[in-house]
């Protein structure tokens, strides 16, 4: 009888020794069980609120609930125009170009395309396919792109005009530069890149510096600039520099839309130092 009692005692001891307390063993969990000796993987945690969208500036990787605090990157592009370093004044015969012609500026309209931000590691984002700037229309002088994916962007690139993939007749029928920017099929088709117009020497003399794909040749060019303040970017055009460096060009622009030589010079001058970004 005693033996039986002992046997039962030993058995029950073993049984109780085998039985372990199961539960959450993570002290940071809300259902932490201090008695638990076996983690059952069923821990609950207090929600961490924050921005859970990884394209936002304030993305919080540990956040479990989106508290609506996400803030996105918004980029503001400002198009600014200068003559000899001073902000453009229209309709005044106050400028002298590198060929010693006095001139005024009445019209300045142009297309900037493929506006793209880049990171150091080769990621990029297209901000706008094509943007039309007309100095007489204030709304075209700024371009705001809200809610773009946040990355550490370090440079901006854009194309002056339209490259050959875009400079196609009827491709942009519903854009605000249609129909005034149409470049006749007869002269190669597509669209003007730029219409820079005014008077030179006397008020009786007009000049029209029109650039574009003369004879169907691609005269567009791409520029890339480093950027620091990504949210507010100025794209500056120094108008005088269309007419100099490397080659001086005068304002006698008769037949410029058919003049491949002049389009080559304007492109070369344009690449050199017409644009700057700050």
């Amino acid at each position, binding site marked *: 009888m005693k033996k039986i009692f002992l046997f039962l005692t030993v058995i029950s001891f073993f049984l109780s020794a085998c039985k372990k307390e199961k539960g959450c063993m993570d002290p940071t969990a809300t259902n932490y069980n201090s008695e638990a000796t076996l983690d059952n993987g069923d821990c609950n945690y207090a929600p961490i609120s924050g921005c859970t969208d990884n394209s936002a500036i304030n993305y919080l990787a540990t956040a479990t609930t989106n508290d609506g605090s996400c803030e996105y990157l918004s980029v503001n592009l400002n198009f600014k125009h200068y003559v000899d370093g001073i902000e453009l004044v229209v309709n005044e015969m106050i400028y002298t170009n590198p060929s010693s012609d006095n001139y005024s500026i009445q*019209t300045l309209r142009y297309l900037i395309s493929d506006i793209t931000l880049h990171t150091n590691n080769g990621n990029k984002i297209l901000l706008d396919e094509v943007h039309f700037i007309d100095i007489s229309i204030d709304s075209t002088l700024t371009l705001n792109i809200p809610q773009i994916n946040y990355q550490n962007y370090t440079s901006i690139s854009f194309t002056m005009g339209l490259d050959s993939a875009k400079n196609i007749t009827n491709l942009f029928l519903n854009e605000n530069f249609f129909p005034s920017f149409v470049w006749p*099929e007869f002269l190669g088709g597509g669209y003007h890149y730029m219409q820079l117009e005014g008077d030179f020497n006397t008020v009786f003399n007009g000049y029209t510096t029109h650039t574009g794909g003369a004879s169907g040749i691609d005269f567009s060019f791409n520029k890339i600039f480093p950027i620091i303040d990504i949210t507010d970017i100025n794209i500056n055009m120094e108008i005088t520099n269309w007419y100099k460096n490397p080659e001086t060009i005068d304002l006698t622009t008769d037949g410029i839309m*058919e003049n491949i030589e002049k389009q080559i010079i304007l492109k070369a001058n344009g690449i050199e130092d017409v644009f700057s970004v700050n």
Partner: protein
Amino acid sequence: MKFGTYTFLVVILLSIFSCKKEPVPVSECIEGCMDSLALNYNPEATIENESCLYFSNTPYVIETPYGFPNMNIPSDNPMTIEGVLLGEKLFKDPILSANNTQACINCHQQNFSFSEPNQYSTGIDNIQGTRNASALINIGWNTSFNWDGSSLTLEEQAFEPITNQIEMHNNWNNVESELNSHTDYPTLFKEAFDIDYIDSNHVVKAIAQFERTLISANSKLDRYLNNEEQLTISELNGYAIFNTEKGDCFHCHASQLFMDNQFHNNGLDIEPFLDLGRSKVTLNALDNGKFKTPTLRNIEMSAPYMHDGRFATLEEVVEHYDSGGKYSTTVDPLMKKLGIGLQLTNQEKIDLVAYLKTLTDHEFITQ
């Protein structure tokens, strides 16, 4: 017991019959649609004959010609077949003028590309205006209306001539009361817009819908560009002059629309200008003497030319551009070969006019 049951049934039946309304006399039986929401609701009908017709208009689809952008149609005035037909009837109906003598079509005649051959139009009181009636052609693609762009929509524009003192000289109260008491119009407006009272807003909406259907894209040039017809040597020479900086016509008369929706001073006059044009609207002196570029489609049919109809023929127009025009402070840089001009030869002028005539669309002025 049997008698008792019988009596009970009779009483029940009597009570049921006594609840039933008096039968309607045959003379008062009027069949018709009894739904007050239906177009043909008959408030006097006593018997529903399931004839109710409900408002449903039929969309009118604009076919966009090759090389044209999408037409900008106001969202509050979608095109319908009923609306267009009503607009056409109104356009041709002198009911809109104060003394019922003039319709829109009097000054916008189809065989003149919806313009008129007189330099100035004469209104109902025999008073002349000061500008040439605009041709109404492809105007659904215009972004402003009138020579100075004073209206931004066709609806807004259609308000003007009806109350203009030297045009139709009417007032809207009068127009509305005449239309509402007319035999046809209340039904036509109901069908087009589902309205029971005709107001000015719906009159101009209908007219605007009709005007948007005045589309021309079947000229000899269109057929040439579509490889369906050949141009003559002279027309081809004119095509080259037009589309190069030799004639430099294409900057303003741009694209398949043959206009740029903008305003220019093309060197017609020296200052001070008799008609300030665009600056009447913008109050900006830089717009003095600027007028809206008209399309050149069907230009052969819409003489005379310029905002004041000063040129009777296309030859005179070409002569003006060839001369270089006159100087004023706002003259367009594109026109600035002042005193030099285009220097076209006589043959080149003939060629340019021949090209302009390839823009004639006979279908447009006959259909």
